[in-house]
């Protein structure tokens, strides 16, 4: 027999969760409590243990989909002697259905009582109106169970259709502004399918109706509240809910861009000596096995330059009206991860030797890519680097990581004709873009810092003059 597993409420009062990944495929045999999926709720990423022992028949939802609590996400083929499941509300042996007996088998499944279980929270996709009988038809206090089920036609009709025994049809469920919109457009709301909670007709439903000029068949419409983002073929726009890391990034960027006045400076440098140094270091035993990239040396250059220009490593504490200058550097590195942009930082990077720094950068990137960055690694940064060069980009205006005073963008290293010892030669050239918070860093300090970083990358030996 086939058993469905509906998405439970995994926290306290959650209405939806995102399927992150399936740990099983169709056809796999699974045991009870075997982990079948990883799911992210608003509260945590959790693993889902299988409620059945059996064979996976169907995975109803793709990874990346936000699923409403109560929707089937996976079907199992299980042996017939398996016990009743909460996911099978129609199971005749389901406990607690004592008074439902007369109606058994006559109601369509969707209208049958969902186990008001715990995990499933509110009933999803209930009919537009409660199955409530007018008081006049039932003597007060009369035993409701004695009424024959045929008096209850509501369960046998589509959700939008008002019950026949309640007199005149009720007007479609909507809100006053949407009714006004429909009226202005000359649309009869009774023709518009509602996708809101309990069939509510939303503004989008009316606009959709106007765009298409007709009601799309039921099957082609996204189910109420189902995850947007999966574009139907031919659709001209894709709507993706703003959530998770994207939401967080947006809030951080807006707050940073509109509280800290940004100034950006650019410097293009001949980094050929740096590239040569990298090649030399890769040959030395101390760096064998370590990942060395232009970022490694740029990070070191930033750390050296910060010692001479500490104001770039600071924080504007508006609440206490103080400028906090850090005597340590937690170096943030912008990382593109599968879940979006994160800026983990390397704690006390200024105290690290170059090989330690190279190791920390490699570990940070690997952890971030795996999505395993700890919350502690994402907070407490004091200055950041973003390596836009990996995308083949030369320069840009980076936005400060909130609370920090400076961010350096590294451009791509390109072979370009460049002035070299009085002649034009083909050199390795990179552009540095530095944004700083102009409230606490003046053009002078910003420029000196950027010039120092550039000088080191143009001639690593210059470090000798700076430490």
């Amino acid at each position: 027999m086939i058993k469905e597993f509906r998405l439970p409420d995994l926290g306290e009062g959650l209405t939806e969760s995102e399927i992150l990944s399936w740990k099983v495929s169709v056809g796999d045999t699974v045991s009870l409590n075997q982990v079948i999926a990883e799911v992210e709720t608003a509260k945590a990423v959790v693993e889902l243990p299988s409620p059945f022992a059996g064979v996976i028949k169907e995975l109803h939802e793709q990874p990346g989909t936000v699923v409403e609590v109560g929707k089937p996400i996976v079907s199992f083929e299980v042996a017939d002697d398996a016990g009743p499941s909460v996911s099978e509300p129609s199971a005749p042996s389901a406990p607690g259905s004592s008074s439902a007996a007369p109606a058994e088998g006559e109601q369509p499944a969707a209208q049958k009582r969902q186990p008001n279980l715990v995990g499933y929270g509110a009933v999803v996709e209930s009919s537009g109106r409660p199955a409530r009988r007018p008081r006049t038809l039932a003597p007060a206090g009369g035993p409701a169970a004695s009424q024959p089920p045929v008096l209850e036609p509501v369960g046998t009709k589509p959700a939008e259709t008002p019950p026949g025994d309640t007199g005149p049809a009720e007007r479609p469920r909507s809100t006053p502004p949407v009714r006004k919109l429909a009226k202005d457009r000359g649309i009869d709301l009774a023709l518009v399918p509602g996708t809101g909670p309990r069939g509510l007709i939303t503004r989008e439903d009316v606009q959709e109706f106007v765009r298409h000029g007709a009601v799309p068949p039921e099957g082609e419409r996204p189910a109420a509240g189902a995850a947007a983002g999966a574009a139907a073929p031919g659709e001209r726009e894709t709507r993706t809910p703003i959530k998770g890391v994207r939401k967080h990034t947006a809030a951080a960027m807006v707050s940073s861009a509109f509280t800290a006045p940004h100034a950006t400076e650019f410097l293009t440098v001949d980094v050929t000596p740096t590239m040569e140094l990298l090649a030399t270091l890769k040959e030395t035993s101390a760096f064998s096995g370590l990942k060395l990239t232009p970022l490694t040396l740029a990070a070191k250059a930033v750390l050296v330059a910060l010692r001479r220009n500490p104001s770039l490593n600071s924080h504007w504490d508006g609440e206490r009206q103080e400028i906090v200058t850090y005597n340590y550097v937690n170096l943030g590195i912008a990382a593109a991860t599968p879940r979006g942009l994160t800026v983990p930082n390397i704690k006390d990077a200024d105290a690290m030797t170059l090989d330690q720094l190279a190791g920390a950068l490699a570990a940070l990137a690997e952890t971030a890519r795996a999505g395993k960055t700890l919350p502690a690694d994402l907070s407490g940064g004091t200055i950041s680097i973003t390596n836009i060069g990996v995308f083949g980009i030369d320069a840009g205006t980076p936005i400060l990581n909130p609370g920090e005073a400076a961010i350096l963008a590294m451009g791509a290293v390109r072979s370009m004709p460049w002035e070299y010892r009085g002649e034009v030669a083909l050199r390795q050239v990179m552009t540095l873009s530095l944004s700083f918070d102009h409230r606490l860093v003046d053009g002078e300090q910003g420029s000196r810092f950027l010039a120092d970083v550039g000088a080191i990358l143009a001639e690593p030996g210059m470090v000798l003059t700076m430490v």
Partner: protein
Amino acid sequence: MSTDETGQDGAEAPGGTGETQGPAPSGDAGRALVQLVAPAGERVSHPEFDLWVKDITDEQLCSLYEDMTVIRRIDVEATALQRQGELALWPPLLGQEAAQIGSGRSLRSDDFVFSSYRENGVAYCRGVDLTDLLRVWRGNASGGWDPYAINMATPQIIIGAQTLHATGYAMGIQNDGADSVAVTYFGDGATSEGDVNEAMVFAASFQAPVVFFCTNNHWAISEPVRLQSHIQLADRAAGFGIPSLRVDGNDVLAVMAATRVALDRARRGGGPTFIEAVTYRMGPHTTADDPTRYRDANELEDWAAKDPISRVAALLERKGLLTPELEEQVGNTADAVAREMRKGCTGMPDPEPMDVFKHVYSTPNSWLDRQQDHYARYLASFGDPEGAVSDEGAR
């Protein structure tokens, strides 16, 4: 990472003095934990506390191991049931098995337990029906069991409130002239609550036979214990004039010895005792919590090395008792318990709508009767009572 300045960590050297401290202030220098079994399973001898577990036979040691394994299995199964939508919530006890079994197994059947929501292992010791254990977490009833049937109150959700109930019950024992004891379980966070402090004031004033068993699992949801107290929790008791013990909460024998010391004092009319069992909540606060958001993975690793079950297993191994037969038997018991609990959970009949009026008052109440009557009439106005409840009645 788990180590901090106030010495709350449980990693202290074994074999400390660990003597029962009187009301004298002990400062924050930190006292050693009572420990009888080191993390590697080595039996550490202790001049005072050895006497309290001298009677524990090899067979009993094996059964402590079995109980700890079984309650861990109960915990894992209940967590899975929550993820499968069968329970609304579950507060895992992973890592606290020794604290619960060591204390729970030391009680007499006429002692009375007032616990928090995490002492499901203690409830197991009291003989709770496995289905009753889950009733509340399934949202099926407001109370899981008859407290007088197993002499354990249903779990208290309000932090620390049960300590007042325990003190009150203990004062009742005094009036009865009995020698039973009220035992109350609460966490490190609860020691910051007014209720717990009031309960300790009363217990000391009346010298009531109550044991304050504080499970210091290091985290009050996301609040680390070092923010709650700048001194060891056990040392707070001195301020109330209550003697206290600080015990390695991952050492089932040490917990048992400490609990027996406290129970003995209470039975002899010596008044309350405060026990701080230093352990670690290895799982989330509840199934709705994500501890990786606030605590370091290294900390968990440190405590995994002090796992209470591995420790008893190592002790049994040293004694040559950890046979494949024992492991099989323990595994079978755990499997059977998990199966029975799952069956009881998924097969639990749904409550009837009118059940909500049961057990509100023990005597008739006209106001409640009126509400009950109105609700019955409201339900009757629906054609299909089932649909009525799930569609609208429940809102």
